[in-house]
């Protein structure tokens, strides 16, 4: 887990340690529990059933002190708005995003694609076959979510 810098599936880990998948999953839970307390600087994160070692968010300032690089800038208001529409409505076309936001989302979509948070997931079978966008595994890692079902529920439209 330490050597791999990307999420490993239970299957991959099971094959590596030559143990069956059920046992591997149990072992992973044990490791996760062991690092669940705040005294542990690392966490074993579960991203769509794959596992990766990450630093605990509370310890971020120390890592940031250590690193010469600046921490990545948070997304702009326009970008995070675009991201939220894609996250809750995926797969979604550029046109639908623009209609909801009332502005062009081209530059936000470019930024989000560049940061790997969204990707083209296909094309809609309608006139012009517009590109459909969806979120990526990188998106889940960026927000610290295990899966899309962990997204907070979309606020209701109370006025309707």
């Amino acid at each position: 887990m330490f050597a791999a810098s990307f999420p490993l599936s239970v299957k991959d880990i099971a094959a590596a340690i030559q143990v069956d998948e059920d046992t591997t999953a149990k072992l992973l839970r044990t490791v996760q529990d062991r690092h669940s307390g705040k005294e542990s600087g690392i966490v074993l994160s579960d991203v769509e059933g794959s596992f990766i070692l990450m630093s605990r968010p509370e310890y971020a300032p120390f890592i940031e002190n250590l690193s010469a690089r600046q921490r990545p800038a948070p997304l702009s208001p326009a970008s995070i708005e675009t991201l939220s529409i894609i996250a809750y409505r995926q797969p979604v076309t550029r046109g639908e995003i623009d209609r909801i936001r009332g502005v062009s989302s081209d530059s936000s979509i470019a930024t989000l694609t560049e940061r790997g948070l969204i990707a083209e997931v296909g094309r809609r079978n309608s006139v012009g076959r517009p590109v459909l966008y969806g979120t990526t595994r990188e998106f889940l890692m960026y927000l610290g979510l295990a899966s899309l079902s962990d997204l907070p529920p979309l606020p209701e439209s109370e006025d309707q």
Partner: protein
Amino acid sequence: MKVDTEGFSGPLDLLLSLIEKKQIDICEVSISEIADDYLEQVSSMEWLDIDQAAEFLIMAATLLYIKVRALLPPDEALEELAAVAEEVPDPRAELVERLVEYRRYRDAARLLRSLEAVGSRMYTRPPRPLPTPAVRANPMEGISGHDILQAYLDASSSIPEEFPYLPTDEIPIATQMVAVLVRLARRGKLGLFEFLGGERSRHLLVSTVLAVLELVRRGRISASQPAPFGEIWMFPTSQATGGAFNEPT
């Protein structure tokens, strides 16, 4: 960009924040009143991006239209229409609907923002390649002879029965390169489409286009197309004089 530094991601965002500042329900809001606030705010903004300015101004126009409609006496023609047809476009209702829908995603974005604050500060090790496997996995693993036969049959069924006849008497590209250079030396400027227009056979067309591309690649001629889909003009470069014709192709 100035608009983002003011914290608004778009006209709906600005409008919504003006409504919320007054603590009124979206559905009850007096668009006329909000229109004034909106215009005041927009006119105080500095515009660097013309596209973004346009988006804010379209909203301003919509608000003014709604305000004016509310001030004018009811339009009889419209009322008659309403009596017949169920659906008469109501810009105010449409705007309120858009605001309500937009607000859901704006609020969702705020939730994502708080997740971002935590999640984006969980660090992983920088990617460093694991040792690559010395022996590649057998690419044929799990594939039977039958699969291969089926793949062949699938592929061959999409190929036409007979290959089209390929003529052997090609026009050498070198010949066409010389032809282009000779013509250019004489005229100084040559339109590609005009030049191709004189070619009858398809083979000659292909060799001529290849010849032109080759000449451009070698820097013998330059080509420019002033307008999309327009004529492509070819010009000799200074290199084109002197010994240009003798190089092997």
